[in-house]
């Protein structure tokens, strides 16, 4: 028992090192525009983790983002620069429709015992590389999956939905209201999927930017209904950060509950899934 507790603490420690932004600070992507007209525009994006939204007071999100173009093809990240407080990059918009810009993370954290020595899985281990990352003869394999999606949407011209085609991994948004069609005073409905299925009971937190200049957080906390949907009524125009998490830890995977001391089946002990976005709400 002591052993197990020890390893859970260790995993928590690993998690804190590997993805500090998921817990200690809010990770965000802030686009210079979300609704643009014409057929040849640039946008620039700040990528950072901070306490106050959207102020640069902590660390950059240094991971290279991905760009999904309206026609489904991969776009280019240009002028990527990682500074002390933020990463910045530009995206050249040349197609009509909605772009998705994402920082995705789908990793396995964990540790194992080999020849009496406890070792951590190498950083960047994924489900695909997990089998290769655990050497033969390893025992007490403990793993935790972390699937995190931080993405924003930008529309040139009329909104489109090609880029919302789910990948069926982690938490994903399906627009009922298009996220680039949000107006103060109106209500917007979004559906969330977990691994491709409508996810009931997810916790959705919406926080308006500009935290530094007010006393109260003014957060809106919602829970997805049976069909995975929430409806948000926007109190004011501005940029909002939205975070979607599972309210309670997922049931333990096959790595849990095995007898201590002997070889343990490999598999996810726990899984953490997370979705973040920044939404621009325009004035009516």
């Amino acid at each position, binding site marked *: 028992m002591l052993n197990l507790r020890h390893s859970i603490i260790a995993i928590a420690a690993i998690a804190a090192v590997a993805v500090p932004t998921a817990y200690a600070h809010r990770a965000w992507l802030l686009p210079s525009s979300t*609704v*643009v*007209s*014409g*057929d040849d525009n640039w946008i620039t994006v700040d990528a950072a983790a901070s306490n106050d939204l959207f102020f640069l007071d902590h660390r950059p999100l240094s991971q290279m983002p991905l760009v999904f173009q309206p026609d489904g093809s991969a776009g280019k990240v240009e002028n990527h620069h990682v500074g002390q407080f933020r990463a910045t990059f530009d995206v050249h918009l040349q197609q009509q429709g909605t772009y998705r810009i994402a920082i995705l993370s789908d990793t396995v954290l964990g540790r194992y015992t080999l020849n009496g020595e406890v070792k951590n899985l190498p950083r960047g281990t994924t489900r695909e590389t997990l089998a290769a990352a655990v050497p033969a003869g390893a025992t007490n394999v403990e793993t935790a999956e972390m699937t995190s999606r931080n993405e924003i949407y930008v529309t040139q011209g*009329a909104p489109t939905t090609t880029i919302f085609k789910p990948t069926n991994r982690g938490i994903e948004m399906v627009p009922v209201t298009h996220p680039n069609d949000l*107006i103060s005073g109106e209500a917007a409905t979004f559906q969330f999927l977990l691994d491709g299925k409508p996810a009931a009971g997810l916790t959705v937190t919406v926080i308006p930017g500009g935290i530094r200049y007010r006393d109260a957080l003014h957060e809106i906390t919602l829970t997805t209904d049976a069909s995975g949907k929430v409806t948000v009524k926007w109190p004011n125009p501005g940029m909002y950060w939205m975070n979607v998490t599972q309210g309670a830890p997922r049931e333990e995977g096959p790595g849990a509950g095995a007898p201590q001391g002997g070889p343990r089946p490999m598999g996810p002990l726990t899984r953490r899934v997370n979705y973040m976005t920044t939404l621009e709400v325009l*004035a009516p």
Partner: protein
Amino acid sequence: MQIRFSGIAVAAIGAGLFPGAAHAQTLELTINVPRLKVAEYHKPYVAVWIEKEGATPRTLSIWYDQAKAKGEGTKWLRDVRQWWRAAGRAGKFPADGVSGATRAPGAHKLTLTGGRGAMPALTPGKYKLHVEAARETGGREMVTLEFNWDGKAASARGAGTAELGAVTLTLKR
């Protein structure tokens, strides 16, 4: 207002959504662009569009910086934000018979004929005609005129307080 009439545009725009009108309707619209005492003045982008409940809103006119190289003037169309959402983003600009250059302060008269150019032939019912102005380094304002078209005559007037002056319309057949 330089409206170029295009037969193809008439067929494409006029058909379907406001069906059934037979006789020519004349819409006269006067838009006052106020003279403003500001340090940096740019002529406003102005959009005019018409809405009937249950039908797709239709752009009647959009004044923007058309002359800019490589269509760069279209970059700011989204700042005429209510129009952009209602009708603008569904269109392509420049558009024949719809887009024109920005205009200086003063009274500007538009005469549109139902079923020609951008102007659909109107079936009887309740309409809203919106005029929205957005000015670079300045403000934005929308004036909405509501009228009931009985097939014979209608008129409406309104006024802005900042970016638009008086706006009047008369519609007759």
